[in-house]
């Protein structure tokens, strides 16, 4: 019994790091320009398909194609900004919601059209296997994904806090007008935020493909969880998203273990309701 409990905790922690990585991009984009990217989970889906096709067409393991997938998603993020987001940056919130929601529908439709609704999985990757620690089994793909998420989040934090470009991004997210008065090109910073925000999803997707099915709707579940994570961490807070990712991962597996797996998302969504009712700004969010 005890072993199973620890096993549960560990898997919750591992998936939590990945949630954190997916959420960081969403929260960063929101922090910069107060636009909620409803299609965030679907960019994850696209990243997973990229990984999958790299494997099928070129025989590249998801781990090895990760840099390419990340770069492709970075480009996709920048393209999204200039093509779709820039024209509506000062538009009413409803128009902004329609645009990113439209992207969601478009990406899902596109994936269904091109690749059908089949569930696809890479049968054998370089990471397949388990390691055993006492009674606890840890899947190597999951462990790698968590490690990758930690590294990626760490790099992102370092970039934001320690580099000049990262500080310029923070300055724009703190006070757009003052940043422009310092000579910071806010437009370019917005594009960069989209690039980085979507690239982190690229990393997450590439890591996820090693142990998860790829299908057109895969973004739906992750998308919802990501919103819970971002709300809990505080919209716009990168460190908050990191902490919240772990909490959501733990809540998910613990409620699945203690109450029943069919209820696990219910408790994640309860958590969301609790945040909205009790502390709407989230753990570390600005008011």
């Amino acid at each position, binding site marked *: 019994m005890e072993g199973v409990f620890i096993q549960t905790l560990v898997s919750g922690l591992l998936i939590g790091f990945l949630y954190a990585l997916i959420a960081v991009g969403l929260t960063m984009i929101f922090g910069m320009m107060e636009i909620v990217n409803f299609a965030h989970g679907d960019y994850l889906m696209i990243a997973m398909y990229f990984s999958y096709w790299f494997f099928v067409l070129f025989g590249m393991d998801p781990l090895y194609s990760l840099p390419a997938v990340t770069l492709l998603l970075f480009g996709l993020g920048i393209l999204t900004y200039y093509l779709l987001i820039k024209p509506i940056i000062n538009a009413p919130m409803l128009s902004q919601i329609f645009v990113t929601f439209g992207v969601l529908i478009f990406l899902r439709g596109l994936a269904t059209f091109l690749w059908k609704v089949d569930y696809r999985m890479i049968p054998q990757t370089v990471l397949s296997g388990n390691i055993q620690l006492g009674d606890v089994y840890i899947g190597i793909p999951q462990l790698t994904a968590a490690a990758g998420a930690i590294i990626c989040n760490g790099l992102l934090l370092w970039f934001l806090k320690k580099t*000049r470009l990262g*500080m*310029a991004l*923070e*300055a724009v997210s*703190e*006070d757009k*007008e*003052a*940043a*422009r*008065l*310092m*000579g*910071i*090109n806010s437009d370019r910073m917005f594009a960069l935020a989209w690039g980085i925000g979507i690239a982190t999803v690229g990393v997450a997707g590439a890591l996820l493909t090693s142990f998860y099915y790829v299908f057109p709707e895969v973004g739906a579940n992750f998308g919802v969880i990501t919103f819970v994570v971002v709300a809990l961490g505080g919209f716009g807070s990168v460190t908050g998203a990191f902490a919240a990712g772990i909490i959501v991962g733990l809540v998910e597996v613990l409620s699945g273990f203690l109450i029943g797996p069919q209820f696990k998302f219910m408790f994640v969504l309860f958590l969301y309701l609790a945040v909205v009712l009790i502390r709407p700004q989230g753990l570390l969010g600005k008011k």
Partner: protein
Amino acid sequence: MLTIKNINTYYGQVHALKNVSLHLQEGEIVTLIGANGAGKTTLLNSISGIVPPKSGQILFSGEPIHELPPHGIVERGISQVPEGRQVFKPLSVEDNLELGAYLRCRKRDGKKEAKETMTMVFDLFPILMERRKQLAGTLSGGEQQMLAIGRALMAKPKIMLLDEPSMGLAPLVVQEIFRVIENLAREKKTTVLLVEQNARVALKTASRGYVLETGKVILDGDAADLMENRDVQRAYLGRDKKEIWER
């Protein structure tokens, strides 16, 4: 040095600046006084490119700049210290200053030169040196104002646009800040356009002044003359109240 010719600026439907003309000569302090909503901040934001004018011209050393983006204008040498300081609160004092030199740091040797400018800023405001590791949000109002001025200076501007530097500050702090502004103009030959509601201090510091009312320049001239002007005294210096009352 800076010439503004008949600019018209709109905020949406609101005609905020109506045919405003103004000029600045090198090394002088010029003040812009007027009530709330007269368009003073809009004028500064038009110069900075935040709210570009719909018509008219802004010339800097003879070159039109009214179609440049804000970063282009900072690059030419016009920096603004915005109303309410607008320092980057979650960043340290040092990081705030570094961001002020954002464009310069992209050039070769820019970083080294920016370090020198930072030393100069610390000489002007020693308190910022003491607090350089502190987050800007933890500073007092006066210190934040000094930081905002220091941050603008990091770009090594030829023209400084100051928006209400005295707002909400204790008289002693106001004195210190105005002493620095005077020094900048006298010793560093920085041209200053000073927007103020505190017309008395502003007119004492400046050599010339403009009076803005509902988007129009209604008066301009030497600061000393404006100080003596009946209308200015009545509207902005709070003298002569009795006469109005008696009438």
